């Protein structure tokens, strides 16, 4: 099947007809996956396409409702992780699976201790690990508690853990999402070396470039099913993107957008600084302006300060230094900083990145979620703090109509709506709830986990707000989205604005270089 498939060996992994559903969600439908031994196999697909689910089934975390699995040619049952480990499968999970207060060494040997006495076990394991670290080039400080290790080292620790257990088939679920470009490069060197030593790699990633760089073959998933399965040599980045989304990706921008010059500055930010409890700077001297009639995109690998930037601008987080001017009022940090209520008063609306945790209260009904943040408006609250529920429900019904939220049921529990519809409801609220339209709109990950139809709809609404004279800031980890929407692009890297590009100058290569830490001049 794949070019590097060694002669005669059975495939390392063969999954056939895998089906899995969670309640109403069909996470995997009739999935077939064949991975040749000693190759690197990529799996790509949008959020929620079912990639992690498929790998969790392979690792014994979940049980498939239908289908069969063969490992190295033998039909197997994998009822639990123990059996998967015994079959030589190792998994590096999308979220770290580490016990923070324990040492790296203890984390590695947990569940595979060679002796019931810890002292003896540690000695044996340490010796083996030192050899393993030499062989693979994966360096980890074994005696530090995991909580003291930086993310890159934790990632290496995870791989080491899998290899220590004798993994011949290594699943990596988005291993680079939290890594810096340098760390990613280092990781890839290691992965290539492992492959050369005969380990079969299964790599899930959203970064198609990584697939092209490392993998021998790739499987594309969409809505739980495989839509493309091909050797890497027979495909291209564009073809993969098209397969992922299900139609030609329209990188093109809407016609009317360009020419008009932006207006007055509506939001000005200077010198934002914020470091987390560990003292790691998450915002490092961030300054930016938002002008009427423009969409500014913030690009960057997630975890480079975008979340904190949105939080600071919306008043949810008070930075340690910096100032912000909004609606003619100035706020300085530390001391008097914007709070979410003041932000709304000053006509700043905010669609949070994490709609499940922030955008709505899942346990509440849709109308209760729909007024969140605007529940103090005069038209919703009467004398003595009495809530005008009728008004709230009617408003919600109107917004649902305007933004095509399905089902149109204001009484339904918020959690019962699908991701895309939840997102539309939040967007509708932020656009329509204020008494006058918002001047500044902050949007985090506007279309994460949202289907194509909804993406188009949402993009259209954002443009309409811009055209009406609003200033829109879009944070997205999807480059395509940035390219489709923004008039101006800022790239964030390690908490700072690494550079700014006018949309005409934006190429994926230029953005990529900025995201990887180059300066603006080098990138251009």
């Amino acid at each position: 099947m794949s070019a590097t498939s060694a002669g005669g060996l059975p495939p390392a992994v063969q999954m056939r007809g895998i089906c899995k559903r969670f309640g109403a969600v069909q996470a995997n439908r009739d999935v077939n996956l064949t991975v040749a031994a000693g190759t690197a196999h990529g799996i790509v697909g949008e959020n929620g396409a079912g990639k992690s689910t498929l790998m969790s089934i392979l690792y014994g975390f979940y049980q498939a409702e239908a289908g069969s699995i063969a490992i190295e040619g033998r039909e197997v049952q994998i009822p639990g992780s123990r059996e998967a480990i015994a079959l030589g499968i190792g998994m590096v999970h999308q979220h770290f699976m580490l016990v923070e207060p324990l040492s790296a060494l203890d984390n590695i040997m947990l569940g595979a201790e060679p002796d019931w006495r810890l002292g003896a076990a540690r000695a044996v394991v340490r010796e083996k690990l030192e050899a393993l670290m030499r062989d693979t080039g994966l360096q980890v400080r074994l005696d530090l508690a995991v909580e003291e290790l930086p993310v890159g080292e934790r990632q290496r620790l995870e791989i080491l853990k899998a290899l220590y257990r004798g993994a011949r088939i290594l699943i990596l679920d988005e291993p680079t999402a939290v890594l810096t470009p340098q760390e990613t490069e280092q990781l890839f060197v290691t992965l290539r070396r492992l492959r050369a030593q005969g380990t079969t790699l299964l790599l899930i990633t959203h970064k198609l470039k990584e697939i092209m760089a490392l993998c021998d073959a790739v499987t594309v998933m969409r809505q739980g099913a495989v839509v493309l399965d091909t050797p890497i040599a027979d495909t291209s980045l564009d073809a993969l993107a098209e397969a992922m989304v299900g139609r030609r990706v329209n990188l093109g921008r809407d016609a009317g957008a360009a020419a008009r010059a932006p207006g007055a500055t509506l939001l000005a930010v200077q010198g934002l600084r914020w470091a987390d409890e560990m003292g790691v700077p998450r915002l490092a001297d961030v300054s930016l302006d938002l002008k009427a009639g423009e969409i500014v995109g913030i690009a960057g690998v997630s975890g480079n300060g975008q979340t904190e930037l949105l939080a600071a601008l919306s008043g949810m987080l008070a930075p340690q230094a910096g100032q912000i001017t909004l609606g003619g009022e100035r706020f300085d940090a530390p001391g008097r900083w914007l709070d979410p209520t003041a932000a709304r008063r000053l006509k700043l609306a905010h669609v949070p990145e994490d709609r499940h945790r922030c955008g709505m209260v899942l346990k509440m009904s849709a109308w209760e979620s729909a007024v969140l943040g605007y529940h103090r408006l005069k038209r919703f609250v009467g004398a003595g703090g009495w809530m005008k529920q009728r008004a709230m429900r009617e408003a919600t019904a109107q917004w649902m109509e305007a933004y095509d939220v399905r089902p149109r049921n204001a009484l339904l529990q918020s959690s019962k709506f699908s991701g895309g519809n939840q997102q539309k409801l939040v967007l509708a609220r932020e656009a329509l709830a204020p008494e006058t339209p918002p001047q500044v709109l902050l949007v985090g990950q506007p279309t994460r986990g949202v289907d194509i139809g909804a993406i188009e709809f949402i993009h259209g609404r954002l443009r309409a707000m811009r055209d009406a004279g609003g200033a829109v800031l879009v944070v997205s980890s999807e480059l395509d989205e940035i390219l489709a929407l923004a008039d101006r692009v800022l790239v964030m890297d390690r908490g700072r604005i690494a550079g700014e590009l006018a949309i005409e100058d934006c190429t994926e290569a230029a953005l990529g270089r900025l995201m990887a830490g180059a300066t603006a001049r080098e990138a251009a």
Partner: protein
Amino acid sequence: MSRPVELPRWADIGLLPLINLAMALAVSAIVVAVIGLDPVQVITQLVKGAFGTRSGLGYTLYYATTFTFTGLAVAVAFHGGLFNIGGEGQAMVGGLGVAAVSLAFGNSLPAVLMLPLAVVAAMAFGAAWAAVPAALQAWRGSHVVITTIMFNFIASALLAWLLVNHLKAPGGMTVETVAFADSAHLPGMHELLAGLGIEWPRTPLNASLLLALAAAVGVWALLWRLRAGYELRAVGHSPEAAHYAGIHPRRQVMLAMLISGALAGMVGVNELSGVQHKLLLDFVAGAGFTGIAVSLIGRNHPLGIVLAALLFGALYQGGAELAFEVPGFSRDMVTTLQGLIVLFSGAMARVAAPALSRVVMALQPRAAVAAGAAHG
């Protein structure tokens, strides 16, 4: 491991709690049988004792009054995302407040001023006792479950110390204060009804019942009709979302616990102003803990809580009657039943859900399929 089972709303809110209650009753019946009594006789006597006479009904409602207060206290905190186990201590301190003002001003103030003052004192003292754990939770992240347990013990030590060393009636041997002046006596229900020309036997049931019902309506309005309650519930469900909406989670934690403590403190009004007319050591008698059970089976809703309080009031009164009537029966059986209810309706509330879900599915296959299709 089991995964959460979805049930239709009617089954979830109506049927499952009844099944859990039935399981608790069934186990209790077994215990009753083991100690050699006839469960059927016990149940009939219990119901007769609780509802069979007007005087029995009076006692039932009197107990229910106290449980309504403590149940509401647990529920308000719960909606704010907090598990307040400190109702017991807050009630004790609330009673201390009632006693303090009743003893200090009882002789100088007329009842129209004295009684509202007692109510205010009960609420203020109860709230104050809840304020410390609340503040520690809000600002220092100290788990409110542990701190409120600790505060129960501290409250009981405080009450004992104050009573023994400062408040005890001089010369007396019992650890209790002198009786409150007449103006600090909340009118009994028999007096109120006599005013309306209705004859009612003399029972501890007093005007607090009306306060408890008002409190239930008030809590309902707060939680589901007032902005403050909306914000409180938002924090309870999702502190992050609340923060996003400009609601201050800390302020809501304080608010929830203060209201909760104030409600628990009202036990002092029912028990001291209404019945005992003096402060004594053990007047709360576990009502704070009973409030947890009441809130659990009342599904944290005021209406449910009033009904559950009535159930527990009936159990207490029926239990007392049983203890009079049936040799060998002790009221501790009611404590046992209460524990079993907390077990089945609280900790094991979802154990019966999978089986129930299968039954429900089997009974209405078409509806279930349709619902599934709508989702997909």
